[in-house]
């Protein structure tokens, strides 16, 4: 692969545009918005450097205005065994692509152990949100050069795992999320093919250390950058040029700074819940060859028998796998709906079926309009969509009209479609839970429920017919990955949008004073998975003992199902059992949570005079003494203390 981000369009007059932004005198959010648009291109090394320089210090700008415009600051510490300064511009620009403004701390070269072991180090003073431990292969083995005696690899792996446990533990103590990286196996061979199986050879030894790293990281919930795969994809002799190592201790060539930056930013974004959720696909010449309207469902090129047909088939297979891991699929085609659907129902070669699509739009409206319909129908933001269309004109139109939608360039050859989507990495995941696996089924069930709702005489009949069961319990280790995912991903039904790392959530889980709630909802159509998370912290109001609702979020899939009412019944009962007299709710507005502006009023809370610290938010109170549980059509159970 070339060093380029080839799925992004090339910039047009980069210098002119950057110069205009610098001189425009626009306010900071508008300036950053313009820079973000520019960042969404396939930039060269020098263009990336220039753009990154325009961004320096942006993370320390006025927080409120930036947050409103969809930007978030993130403090990233890099502790490395080689020099990494040349990689920072690429990370900064790729983070901007996702609305993240980075502040960096770079530890002294090769001093990562000291930084972690010394509580007074600059690393701890920096208070990072995330720490990237960029430790190279040299550090994995005590004696990286060959020695004829067989290494005791098992003992060495155990030793390394013990050291990682200590270092990761220290890094996590800062409250930061830890991003490790695996070891790049150098291309240099000593015996040749034997290096693969000979325990004393470097290749075999590093493979073993990488296995140990994968296991350790999985057990401890540490993120790992798969650098070895990335270096292989790019060509290892280019990825790490010996000359650059000797002269400047660079273990990654600056040629790959944009690519590595993009990969690191992807992981940061995934942790923050900013990965894309939905793949919107064009049909003609994207999922099959030819126009189904002209050729008929049997005449399109798909399936065995021709190279082109097989190319589209393999793309459909890849898309199907994405759907299976929980990516929502949508179709967006300029076609008669009956013709478009006939391709799926009548051509036996198709791997994708109509049921795989959570939304199916085939009409003659312009595609920007259709994408807006798709997003609102699925109740997800436009910034959750990836639009894949072989037609350059449609791509250009959508980019211009809906800059939030990710629109990759599509290769000429359908054989390259899958790898293009894979390289573009829109669907990067920081974790994978059982709930992800069920997501497609849940969205399909959502449209079923909508149908039932339409046929029910009244809303109450409909809710009754759903036979909903809500099971609520305190946070536990089993639920932790999904809880952390929800806390960092939910934007719309989220009263405070407070993001917490896994160590922070675990600390609250273990804190006796904090009341935590995770809720799952089942109905006649199946298990909706974990759909709501609430955190209550001790507080007082007017001399009364109270609990403050630090976090209240819910999946939008279960909107208008009385879940929030029933959750209030549950938390009010728990709060009262704790001796609390008042529940204190906060609403902190963001660009995306307008949905819950009146949440507390609807639930019978009274607006308090006290404003939220320095913001446009509001505070609400509910006296528990007179609280009568609200009537709902949900049967809830509490599994926890005093149950």
């Amino acid at each position, binding site marked *: 692969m070339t060093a380029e981000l080839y799925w992004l369009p090339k910039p047009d007059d980069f210098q002119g545009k950057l110069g205009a932004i610098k001189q425009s005198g626009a306010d900071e959010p508008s300036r950053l918005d313009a820079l973000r648009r520019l960042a969404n291109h396939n930039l*060269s090394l020098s263009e990336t450097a220039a753009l990154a320089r325009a961004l320096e210090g942006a993370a320390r700008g006025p927080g409120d205005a930036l947050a409103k415009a969809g930007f978030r600051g993130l403090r990233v510490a890099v502790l490395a065994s080689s020099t990494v300064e040349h990689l920072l511009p690429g990370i900064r620009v790729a983070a901007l692509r996702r609305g993240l403004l980075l502040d960096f701390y770079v530890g002294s070269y090769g001093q990562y152990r000291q930084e972690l072991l010394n509580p007074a180090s600059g690393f701890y003073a920096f208070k990072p949100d995330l720490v990237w431990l960029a430790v190279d292969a040299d550090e994995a083995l005590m004696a990286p050069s060959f020695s004829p005696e067989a290494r005791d690899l098992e003992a060495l792996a155990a030793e390394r795992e013990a050291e990682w446990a200590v270092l990761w533990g220290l890094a996590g103590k800062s409250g930061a999320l830890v991003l490790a990286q695996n070891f790049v196996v150098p291309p240099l061979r000593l015996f040749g093919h034997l290096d693969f199986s000979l325990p004393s050879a470097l290749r075999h030894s590093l493979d073993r250390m990488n296995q140990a790293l994968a296991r350790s990281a999985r057990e401890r919930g540490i993120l790992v950058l798969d650098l070895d795969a990335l270096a292989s994809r790019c060509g290892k002799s280019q990825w790490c040029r010996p*000359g650059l190592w000797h002269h400047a201790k*660079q273990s990654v060539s600056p*040629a790959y700074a944009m690519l590595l930056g993009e990969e690191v930013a992807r992981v940061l974004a995934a942790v923050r819940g900013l990965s894309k959720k939905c793949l919107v696909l064009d049909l003609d010449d994207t999922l099959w060859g030819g126009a189904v309207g002209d050729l008929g469902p049997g005449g399109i090129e798909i399936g065995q028998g021709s190279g082109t047909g097989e190319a589209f088939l393999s793309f459909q297979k890849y898309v199907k796998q994405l759907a299976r891991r929980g990516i929502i699929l949508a179709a967006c085609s300029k076609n008669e709906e009956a013709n478009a659907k006939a391709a799926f129902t009548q051509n036996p070669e198709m791997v994708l079926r109509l049921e795989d699509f959570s939304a199916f739009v085939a009409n003659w409206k312009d595609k920007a309009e259709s994408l807006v319909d798709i997003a609102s129908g699925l109740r997800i933001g436009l910034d959750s969509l990836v639009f894949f269309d072989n037609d350059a004109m449609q791509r250009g139109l959508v980019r211009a009209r809906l800059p939030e939608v990710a629109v990759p360039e599509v290769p000429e050859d359908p054989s390259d479609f899958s790898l293009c989507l894979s390289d573009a990495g829109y669907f990067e995941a920081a974790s994978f839970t059982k709930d992800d696996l069920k997501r497609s089924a849940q969205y399909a069930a959502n449209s079923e429920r909508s149908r039932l709702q339409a046929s029910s005489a009244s809303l109450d009949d409909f809710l009754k017919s759903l036979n909903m069961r809500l099971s609520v319990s305190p946070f536990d280790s089993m639920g932790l990955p999904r809880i952390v995912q929800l806390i960092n991903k939910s934007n719309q039904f989220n009263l405070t949008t407070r993001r917490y790392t896994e160590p922070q959530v675990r600390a609250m889980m273990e804190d006796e004073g904090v009341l935590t709630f995770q809720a799952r909802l089942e109905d006649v159509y199946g298990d909706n998975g974990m759909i709501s998370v609430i955190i209550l912290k001790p507080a007082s109001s007017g001399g009364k003992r109270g609990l403050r609702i630090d976090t209240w979020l819910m999946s939008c899939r279960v909107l208008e199902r009385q879940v929030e009412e029933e959750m209030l019944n549950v938390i009010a009962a728990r709060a009262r059992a704790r001796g609390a007299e008042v529940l204190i709710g906060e609403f902190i507005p963001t660009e995306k949570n307008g949905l819950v502006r009146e949440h507390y009023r609807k639930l019978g809370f009274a607006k308090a005079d006290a404003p939220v610290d320095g913001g446009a938010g509001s505070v609400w109170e509910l006296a528990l003494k007179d609280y009568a549980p609200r009537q709902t059509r949900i049967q809830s159970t509490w599994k926890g203390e005093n149950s």
Partner: protein
Amino acid sequence: MTQPSSRQEIYEGLTPIFHELFEDQGLVLRDDLTAKDVPLWDSLNHINLVIAVEQKFRVKFSTPEIARLGNLGQFVDLIAKKTAK
């Protein structure tokens, strides 16, 4: 850009790289320009410059070749030699 035939074309290719890397839109490239004349031309940016030029002109420089460079004119000559077929 591949195979520029003249030094002038090489200069045209180099100009945006210099302007972007060294954040100086007014920098005029000339044969006797050296790192001392440009504030942001430090050792880190020197490597960035070499790699950016490699990518732009699709050439590759060896460590000794880079070490021998005295001024921009010599760099242009080297690019001309490498891109000539």
